[in-house]
């Protein structure tokens, strides 16, 4: 039994917080999530009791810190089903994708090669590839969508039409429409065609069980802050043989065995060779606590909770012709919509005036507008602590919220 009332008690941000004088209803979880006490306390503990660097001292505090970082890496590896040395700490999903771009693609792609992505991708899974293409002469190509969706067939056809695809990079769950792709099947197609597959797990790993080995993807990236963890930490999970093949990206202390005055550097093995400089240690401790929190709740329960809220919201919105929903056929915790005749930003501002946090615009997926047919949408997104009562408040304000200018003229 998933006890939502009990879950909500863990989150300080859900205790009597207001926005615009109204109880806060936070429905922008695809952007970032609230942190439970367990995560905040774990991070406090680092600063209050454990403060030390890692890998850099001969004293107990430092040794203990090394043990904590190793435990965090093990926790992540177990959570995602990878080997422990396949987990590289990064500042988040964006840096993880950039690490593959600069460490792998820049090293191994050349003029004439192609990178397959989609027009629904977030900027973080588009712009690193554009940059690599500028540097190498490779080209980005786009999978043909089937009514807004990336399908296995679409990826298969892309390979039929194009023998130069060397790398495929797609979001596991889209950040605007919430559609899940068949990652396992797509990975198999990529490998049959001699390409590598990067799976952007920013919107999937926080919401469902993701098994790195079972999916057989080459790279998986995600951020802690979208899964109850701190900002500024995330990871790249990569097949070890590929991580070892990759060039280093950031260089400096903590990533090398030795170097000399002939400009010779011997890097450490992966994952350490990618982790130059002092790690974000308090965030790593918080990341571990977040994963333990999610694991205790159960990823199946979390996924089911999102899906139930989605179905509940969609069923309540049914029959309101002035509310256009772009992803009714999805089943994640994201609803992309517009009110007829109202600019997305204006609706989001009206909702803000009611204490409801949603996002409007293109949500960093700036090629998606022709796919949806609108320049902007409003996006509401749920998480493990979102309640049905919050969905009710949201929908009531969509329907009875009044005029958009009420946001400026309410008393």
């Amino acid at each position, binding site marked *: 039994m998933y006890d939502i009332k009990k879950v909500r008690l863990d989150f300080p941000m859900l205790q009597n917080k207001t926005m*615009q004088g109204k109880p806060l209803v936070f429905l922008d979880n695809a952007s970032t999530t609230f942190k439970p006490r367990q995560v905040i306390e774990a991070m406090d503990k680092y600063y209050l009791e454990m403060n030390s660097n890692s890998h850099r001292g001969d004293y107990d505090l430092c040794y203990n810190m090394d043990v904590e970082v190793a435990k965090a890496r093990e926790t992540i590896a177990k959570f995602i089903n990878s080997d422990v040395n396949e987990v590289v700490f990064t500042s988040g999903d964006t840096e993880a994708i950039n690490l593959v771009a600069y460490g792998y693609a820049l090293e191994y792609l050349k003029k004439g090669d192609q990178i397959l992505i989609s027009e629904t991708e977030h900027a973080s899974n588009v712009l690193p590839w554009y940059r690599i293409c500028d540097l190498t002469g490779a080209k980005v190509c786009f999978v043909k969508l089937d009514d807004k969706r990336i399908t296995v067939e679409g990826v298969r056809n892309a390979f039929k039409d194009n023998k130069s695809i060397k790398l495929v990079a797609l979001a596991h769950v889209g950040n605007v429409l919430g559609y899940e792709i068949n990652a396992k099947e797509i990975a198999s197609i990529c490998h049959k065609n001699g390409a590598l597959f990067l799976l952007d797990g920013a919107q999937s790993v926080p919401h469902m069980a993701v098994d790195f080995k079972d999916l057989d993807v080459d790279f998986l990236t995600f951020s802690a802050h979208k899964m109850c963890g701190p900002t500024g930490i995330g990871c790249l999970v990569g097949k070890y043989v590929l991580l070892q093949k990759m060039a280093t990206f950031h260089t400096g202390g903590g990533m090398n065995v030795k170097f000399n005055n002939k400009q010779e550097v011997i890097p450490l093995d992966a994952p350490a060779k990618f982790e130059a400089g002092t790690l974000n240690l308090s965030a790593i401790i918080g990341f571990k606590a977040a994963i333990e929190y999610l694991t205790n709740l159960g990823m199946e329960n979390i996924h089911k909770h999102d899906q139930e809220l989605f179905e509940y919201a969609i069923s309540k919105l049914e029959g309101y012709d002035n509310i256009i929903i772009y992803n009714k056929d999805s089943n994640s915790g994201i609803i992309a919509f517009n009110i007829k005749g109202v*600019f*997305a*930003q*204006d609706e989001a*501002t009206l909702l*803000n*005036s009611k204490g409801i946090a949603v996002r*409007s*615009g293109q949500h960093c997926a700036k090629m998606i507008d022709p796919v949806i047919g609108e*320049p*902007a949408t409003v996006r509401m997104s749920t998480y493990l602590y979102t309640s049905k009562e919050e969905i009710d408040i949201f929908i009531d304000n969509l329907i009875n919220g009044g*005029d*958009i*200018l009420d*946001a*400026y*003229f*309410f008393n």
Partner: protein
Amino acid sequence: MPISLTNEMMRAIIMDHSSNPTNKHTPSGEGYQKVHMHSDNCIDDLDIYLKIENDRVVDACFEGIACTISLSSTDIMCDLMKGKTIQESLYMIEQYQHMMHEEPFDDEVLDEAIVFINTSKQAARIRCATIGWNAANSILKDK
């Protein structure tokens, strides 16, 4: 004085300028200076055009995509700026900015633009209400 406008009148003015922005078009003639402005947190993506002759703004118009607040605030600014000297325009922009940030301001010069007095209630939209005004300011301040 516009300050005596009721809320309902202020709403009507905003809606009128957003549904029928008379200054939203590209300039037909020559001699315009253009500034492009876009917003990181809104859809706003505008080109602002000013035509300045003999130290005076003789025409102002804009084109692009904008939310209700940026559309109406830019349209009203164009109306108010036409015919004003550069000095008068800069003073008006300065007073408008003061109003946005809830600082003391000279309401005499803001005329219809007073309808945006409540923008600070929705702080995320201050950028929208000032985007056209900032664009005009960037053209005029170097004159």
